[in-house]
C-alpha cells in the first residue's frame, strides 16, 4: 500500500523529485490527454471561426509587415527569400514560442478550481498544456508549409527537421514559462509583464526583418536567445544554411537541465501556491 508523508520539510533531493515528477507525468498521461481534449473541444464548440483563431494574430502581423514593405512605407534589407514567406514563418514561429512561454502559467491558472480541491499529479497540467500547444502549433506548421509551396520555395530535405526544431522551440518556451509559473500564480502582474516584454522582444528578434549588418541592434539581436530558435527553424524550413548552430546547440543543451530544474521547482511550489489561493 502506498504511503504518503506530509511534513514541513521538503524533500530536497533533486533526483528523487525529478524522478517523481517524470513518473507522475507518465502515469497521468490519460488525465493530460483528457484535459487537453476537453479544452480543445470546449474552445471550438462555442465558436464558428474555430481554428482560425489559432493563426489569425500571426497572420495579421505578417500581413501588416508585408504591406508596409511592398507599399514602400518602410525599406527592409533583402532577406534572401520572398518576403511574405520570411514574414509568415517569422510570425508563426514567434507565436509558437510566445504560446509556449504562456502555457505552463495558463494551464495551471485555469485549473485553480481543481488544484485547491483535488490531489492529482499537477504535472498533468503541464503535459496537457504541451499537448494543446502541439495541436495549435501543428496547425501553424501546416499553414507554414502551405506558404512554402505557394511561394515556390518547394521541398527541401531539411524541411523534415521542422517538427524537431519546432519542438525545440516549444521546450525552450516551456522552460522559461515553468520558472515564471509559481510567482505568476501569486501575482497577476507576471502574465501581463510576460506579454508586454515579448511584445518588445519581437522587434529585437529576426521575426519580420533580418539582423542588420552593424550597429547596436545587431549586437542585441545576435545575443538574443530567441534569435537562434527563430533563425534555425526558418533556415531549415526554407532550405537555407543555418548560421547560428553553435549558439542554438548551447542553448538546447542548457535547456535540458533547466527544464528539469523548472519541473522540480514547479513541484515544490504547488503546495505553497495552493495555500495562498482561495478555495
Amino acid at each position, binding site marked *: 500500500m502506498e504511503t504518503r508523508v506530509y511534513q514541513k520539510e521538503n524533500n530536497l533531493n533533486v533526483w528523487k523529485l525529478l524522478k517523481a515528477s517524470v513518473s507522475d507525468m507518465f502515469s497521468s498521461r490519460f488525465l493530460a490527454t483528457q*484535459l487537453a481534449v476537453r479544452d480543445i473541444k470546449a474552445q471550438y464548440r462555442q465558436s464558428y471561426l474555430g481554428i482560425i483563431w489559432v493563426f489569425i494574430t500571426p497572420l495579421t502581423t505578417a500581413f501588416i509587415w508585408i504591406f508596409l514593405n511592398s507599399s514602400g512605407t518602410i525599406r527592409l534589407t533583402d532577406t534572401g527569400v520572398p518576403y511574405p514567406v520570411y514574414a509568415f514563418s517569422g510570425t508563426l514561429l514567434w507565436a509558437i514560442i510566445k504560446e509556449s512561454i504562456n502555457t505552463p502559467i495558463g494551464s495551471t491558472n485555469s485549473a485553480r478550481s481543481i488544484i485547491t480541491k483535488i490531489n492529482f499529479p499537477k504535472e498533468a497540467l503541464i503535459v496537457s498544456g504541451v499537448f494543446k500547444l502541439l495541436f495549435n502549433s501543428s496547425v501553424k506548421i501546416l499553414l507554414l508549409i502551405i506558404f512554402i509551396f505557394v511561394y515556390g520555395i518547394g521541398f527541401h530535405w531539411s524541411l523534415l527537421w521542422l517538427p524537431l526544431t519546432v519542438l525545440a522551440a516549444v521546450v525552450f518556451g516551456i522552460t522559461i514559462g515553468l520558472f515564471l509559473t509559481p510567482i505568476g500564480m501569486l501575482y497577476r502582474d507576471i502574465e501581463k509583464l510576460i506579454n508586454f516584454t515579448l511584445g518588445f522582444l519581437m522587434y529585437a528578434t529576426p521575426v519580420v526583418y533580418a539582423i542588420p549588418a552593424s550597429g547596436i541592434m545587431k549586437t542585441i539581436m545576435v545575443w538574443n536567445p530567441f534569435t537562434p530558435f527563430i533563425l534555425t527553424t526558418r533556415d531549415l524550413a526554407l532550405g537555407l544554411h543555418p548560421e547560428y548552430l553553435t549558439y542554438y546547440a548551447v542553448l538546447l543543451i542548457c535547456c535540458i537541465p533547466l527544464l528539469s530544474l523548472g519541473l522540480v521547482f514547479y513541484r515544490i511550489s504547488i503546495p505553497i501556491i495552493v495555500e495562498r489561493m482561495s478555495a
Partner: protein
Amino acid sequence: MGNVIEIKNSLSQISHNESEEEVLVNVESLSKKFCKDLKTSLWYGVKDLVTGISGNKNERELRPKEFWAVKDISFKLRRGECLGLIGHNGAGKSTLLKILNGLINPDAGKVTVNGRVGALIELGAGFNPILTGRENIYNNGAVLGFTRKEISEKFDEIVAFAELEEFIDMPVQHYSSGMKVRLGFAIAAQMEPDVLIIDEVLAVGDVGFKIKCYNKISEISTKCAMIFVSHSMPQIARICTDCILMTHGVPKLFFGDVGKAIEAYDSSFSNREQINTISDFFSVSEIKVNGETVLNDNKQIQINFGDSVNVYFELSFFKEYNFEDILFSLVVTDKSQRAIAIAEKQFKAKNKMNNGVFSFNAHLEEMNLTGSVYSLTLNVVEFKSNGLRNVLGRVLYFAELLVQGKKQESYAPIVLNSTWK
C-alpha cells in the same frame, strides 16, 4: 486432518482482521498557520517559494498578521473508523482536510497516510459547462485518478446512480445545481479509497438523493478510514465513531463519544435564542419552568436525563374575543432549531379564560433527552366550530434546557423507554 485445516483457516482469518485494523491516518502534532491579509499573504508566498528551495527546516513562527489555523493536533485513524470534524465556521476544519489530502504542507508536525485517498471536497470540480455530462464524466474521472477503461466500465453505473440517463448528452451548463452535484457524487462514489475525506458536500440535492448518498457513504465507510466534516449533527451522529471539536484551530478530542462532542459543540454557541413573543392577540404575563420565573430572560434550566419539566404559563389576551377551542403546543427544538419532540393540549376557552387571562400548567414527564441544549417554544392556535383555524401566536424559545445526558453508544436526541427480552 480436516479439523486442522479449518483451525488454520480461522487463524489466518483472525490475523487478517487484525491487519485490517492498521493505522491508515497518523497525524502527529500538526500545525498550520494562515495569513489574514491578502497582499501580505501573497508576499509571504513569494518568501516561502524562495525558502522552499532551500528546504526550510527552521522552526516556523508566526509572522505579522498570521495566526494558527490548526494548532497541535494529533490522532490516529484505523480502517472502519470514522472521524467527525466539527466546529464553528473558520475553526480550521477545511484547512486540516487540505493538509490530509496533501494539497498544502503543514507548518509543523507530520501526517502519514497509507493507501489511496479519496476526497469529496467539492463535487464536480473541474466540470466544463460547455461539454456534455458524458464528456465530463471522463474528465472528472481522469482528475480523480481513474483510467479510461475503469471509467468506461463504470459509466453506466455512474449515470444510473446520478439518475441522469436522459440528460447525459446535454451540456452541463444546463444542469441544475442539484444535477451537477448528483453527477459529481456518482463519479466520486466509484472510488475505492482506503482513506475517504468528506467536506460537507451534500448541502445541495434533494432529500431522496441525499439519503442515497449517505447510504453509499456508509457502505464505503466500512471498508476505509473516513474523515467527515459537517455542520449537521444528525449526520455526524449517524456516521461517525469518533469526533474532534475544533475551536479556533485548537482541537478537543472525543474518541468513542460522539454524543459528548455534539453536546460540547451545541453548547459552544453562546448566543442564546431570545424570548420572542409573536402575537396580535396576547402578551405573556408569566412563565415559570420548574417553579422558576423565566419571563424576562430565558434562563437556562438544568435537568438530568429522565427528569420531568413543569411549565406554567399566564397569557393575557388583549380583547375579549369569543374564543372557542384553543390548542397549545409545546415544542422542544434542538440547537439546530429542529423540532424533536412535542406535547399538545386543547382547551375550551370559556372554561379556562378568566378576565382575559389564560393560565395553564403543563407537566412534561420523563424528558429522555440525551445531553445537549434544547429550547422550548409555545404555539397557540384557535379552532373554531365552523372548522376554521386561526393562529393566535407563538412564544419562541422561552426557556433553554441544559440536559445532563447519560452516555449512549450511538447518538440520537431522544432515548425511548424500552423493554427488552
